[in-house]
């Protein structure tokens, strides 16, 4: 009996795990689960939590975020490409301009509140209010509007523009380490050249835009694209 049940269990597992995995990917469940685990962990075993989070900071902030932003870039480029909901650029500017309100109103409120709350040390942290959690925005927008709704790219563009403003402001007024603008510009130029080349090669030959190519098998964005199915 035991010998018969083992292949059965294994078969059930083989079907269930991919189904659960697809469900989790579809609804981006890793984000709320991860946040809940972090919350519980930080409040029960704070020392190990902070040790882990400090140790993982580089891997998460400087490596994993690259892949996350690849996914976000895809989400932005698709709607701004011809036929997309944020095409042409006039439309794409709308969320960018909205991000100005998204950033400056919280910053203004922050500076207004630190006085009455008697937390003057926090006054210098006003650029932090520019930061919008792109991952959470993405998750909530998809939850409310559905994965294919035009509001999703709108929210993402707005969040990314807010973060970009925040990063520029922080870099200008409160850099935590020496800045290397030359290296940054070189990276930016190379990335833009690559994007232009992909765009030209995509629209010139097969009629596919480079986001389509980015989704092709073997591309780094493939995994990210799969999360949308």
């Amino acid at each position, binding site marked *: 009996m035991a010998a018969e049940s083992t292949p059965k269990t294994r078969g059930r597992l083989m079907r269930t795990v991919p189904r659960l995995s697809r469900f989790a990917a579809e609804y981006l469940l890793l984000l709320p689960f991860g946040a809940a685990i972090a919350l519980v962990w930080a409040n029960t075993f*704070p*020392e190990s939590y*902070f040790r882990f989070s*400090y140790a993982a900071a580089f891997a998460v902030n400087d490596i994993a975020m690259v892949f996350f932003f690849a996914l976000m870039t895809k989400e932005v480029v698709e709607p701004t490409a011809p036929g997309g909901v944020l095409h042409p650029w006039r439309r794409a500017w709308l969320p960018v301009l909205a991000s100005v309100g998204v950033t400056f109103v919280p910053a203004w409120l922050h500076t207004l509140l630190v006085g009455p709350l*008697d*937390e*003057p*040390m926090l*006054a210098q942290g006003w650029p932090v209010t520019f930061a919008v959690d792109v991952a959470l925005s993405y998750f909530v927008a998809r939850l409310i509007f559905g994965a294919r709704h035009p509001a999703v790219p709108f929210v993402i563009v707005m969040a990314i523009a807010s973060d970009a403003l925040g990063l520029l402001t922080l870099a200008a007024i409160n850099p935590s*380490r020496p800045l290397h603008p030359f290296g940054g510009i070189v990276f930016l130029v190379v990335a833009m050249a690559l994007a232009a080349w992909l765009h030209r090669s995509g629209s010139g030959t097969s009629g596919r835009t480079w986001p389509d190519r980015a989704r092709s098998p073997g591309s780094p964005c493939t995994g990210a694209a799969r999360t949308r199915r």
Partner: protein
Amino acid sequence: MTAPRRPTLPAVGLALLLAVAAAAQSLPLPNVPGSLKFAVIGDNGTGDSPQYDVGQQMTAAHKRFPFDLVIMLGDNMYGGQSPADFVKKFEQPYAELLTAGVMFRASLGNHDRPQNVSYELFNMNGQRYYSYVRNNVRFVVIDSTQVDPAQLQWLDTILRDAGEDWTVCYFHHPLYSNAARHGSSVNLRVLLEPLFIKHGVDVVFSGHDHVYERIKPQKGIYYFVSGAAGQLRRGNTRPTDETAAYFDQDQTFMLVEVAGDEMNFAAISRAGKAVDSGIIRRERQ
């Protein structure tokens, strides 16, 4: 010629009362000439009467225990921080000490404006974090509100190069605290404690929680929470196995004396009573 008068009963009673009062006011510190003597205050800058009372007790203590340094553990100013506030919340409560030439050296708390590093009487010389030496003691002052990589790098270097007998660190947020309001700053502990252990820090003073608490040595380091020199959260301590002593019924400040390999300390209440005292003996390395 009259015979000397015999002391009457009321006079004897008065003398006894004065003796008891004097004994109550005596400080449990050796008061050795030439030793380093300093006071510790935290979370003091309210400008209210308890702060002034503590200031008076410090002045009284200074007459018997002539410390020439006061270390400030942050939240040196609450609320408004205009020039008039500096007078009301700092210069007046400690006027006699300042006149006597006692030097105050501050660290910043979350209620202090960052610009206060330039206030002359805090002797921070415009620095958020800095270090200085008195006798055989290296004092390291940390800005625990904003611990960035640059500060950690500086801390590592300054602690590594410290050649004095004692290394004392002070800053606002406590790495260990059993007060209910804030408690231990574990996120800071993870960053700072490895450096303290690596470089053999002896004693750490912090405030933030408005109580007095002495922590049992943690990995060889003695920790004090002394954040009640103006503010007070009565009954806020929840002592645990980490707690060596605590007092949360009145405002307090600390007096410390370092002589050779011994550090004597006493926590003094607003009423002038020693609510905790002891000796820390440094192990020669």
